[in-house]
């Protein structure tokens, strides 16, 4: 995966922006769900 030719780079196969974007696509909703869950936990300890 590290030995890329210039042609490989042109086709965007290892575009860091694409990788970041698709991870954000799944992590943002997951983070939202996680936040909604975590805010319920303090009630368990009476706070």
């Amino acid at each position, binding site marked *: 995966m590290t030995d890329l*030719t210039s042609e490989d780079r042109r086709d965007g196969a290892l575009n860091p922006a694409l990788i970041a974007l698709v991870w954000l696509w799944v992590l943002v909703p997951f983070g939202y769900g996680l936040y909604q869950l975590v805010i319920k936990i303090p009630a368990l300890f*009476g706070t």
Partner: protein
Amino acid sequence: MAAGFLQRERIVAPPGWSRWLIPPAALSIHLAIGQAYAWSVFKPPLEAGMDISGVASALPFTLGIIMLGLSAAVFGTKVDANGPRWAMLVASTCFVAGFLISALGLYLRQYWLVVFGYGFVGGIGLGIGYISPVSTLIKWFPDRPGLSTGIAIMGFGGGALIASPLTNQLLTAFGATGDNPDVNGIAQTFLVMGLIYAVFMSVGWLLIRVPADDWRPAGWQPSQAKSHALITTANVSAANAIKTPQFWLLWVVLTFNVTAGIGILERAAPIYRDFFPDASSPTALAAAAAGFVAMLSLANALGRILWSSTSDWAGRKNMYRFYLGVGALLYLAVTLTTNSNKVVFLICTIFILSFYGAGFATVPAYLRDLFGTYQVGAIHGRLLTAWSTAGVLGPLIVNAIADARIAAGVQGPGRYTTAFMIMIGLLVVGFVCNELIRPVHERFHEPRADAATSTTGAQA
């Protein structure tokens, strides 16, 4: 759309394609279909709006879980043969269609359409979607199969975390809450959620790629793969796998591990209230019980990735020794200490639920170790019938015993002592079954020529 678009040959990754694009593709499917565990949010408005019983409002979910197991078992071989893009598109189509049919059913006030749409059609999407990325992930991450499948299967646990607040907000926005919910508002919630999931899941089938025949992780060679008697370099077909004792031993292991987890998870809020009823007010007690459920959900999701990725260096068999053996001891600790120490109770239940999630997440890599990569998706699909069995067994044991104890006038933790002792017994049986797992006899192996091809990703 040309049929060729879905073919395996069209999604062979070009040189330089990052394998780190594959987990988010898998997550976009699993985070969506994990919505199934948030079905309970729909129950109160459906019961009030459609004037149906609690049993009737649970039908779409129950049928969906049954269809998950059945469709994973029936279509597993086709998923392996047609490739992950085909499987993900079919799964997305069925899952989204389930929501749209349900919306139509509610507009027409025909509840059977909700059962058919969400339960039957959507349930097929659950089964195909659940197994769709598994074999592809294992082939992209031959050095870390536990981590890769752990990420995806954590997504299934995390799906409900997203769907639960989302559903609540949509129901509120469309006036479908309270004692007299607007049924059209429930329909609109189904419609909007279906459309959201259609867009969200599209990233999965657009992005998924299979590795080229000669692809390997940088700096990694098959000869460097972790060597162990239980990690085969051969391949076993799905048809042959179910003839092996290893498959059925693992089936029992998964069934009892899941049963033990569901036993607590399914009745988490009442268990907490019975163990720790002292609170400043009923509202505070309800909030604390909700916090307990939230903490268990978090343990379930995090256990999937944490323990599954640990299995890559600790070994699959050792991890199931841990889940089942330590799980039994933790159940014993809860049974003996009951409500005398809240911290001990919380720690024990958190670990038990993390082992429950881990059991799901580690099993694809265990199957890869035992049966090779050739038809691991199809074998995984057949193994998921254990999930359906445990889904009936766990709640049945805990609820039947607890209800009988309540009827007998038993108060507090005593309502669950017998059920927890049964769980300990099941975990011990699972532990013994795991100990009995040995390498698969070579008479079940595929011819070596096939094996040599598939270990380099030809069948991904």
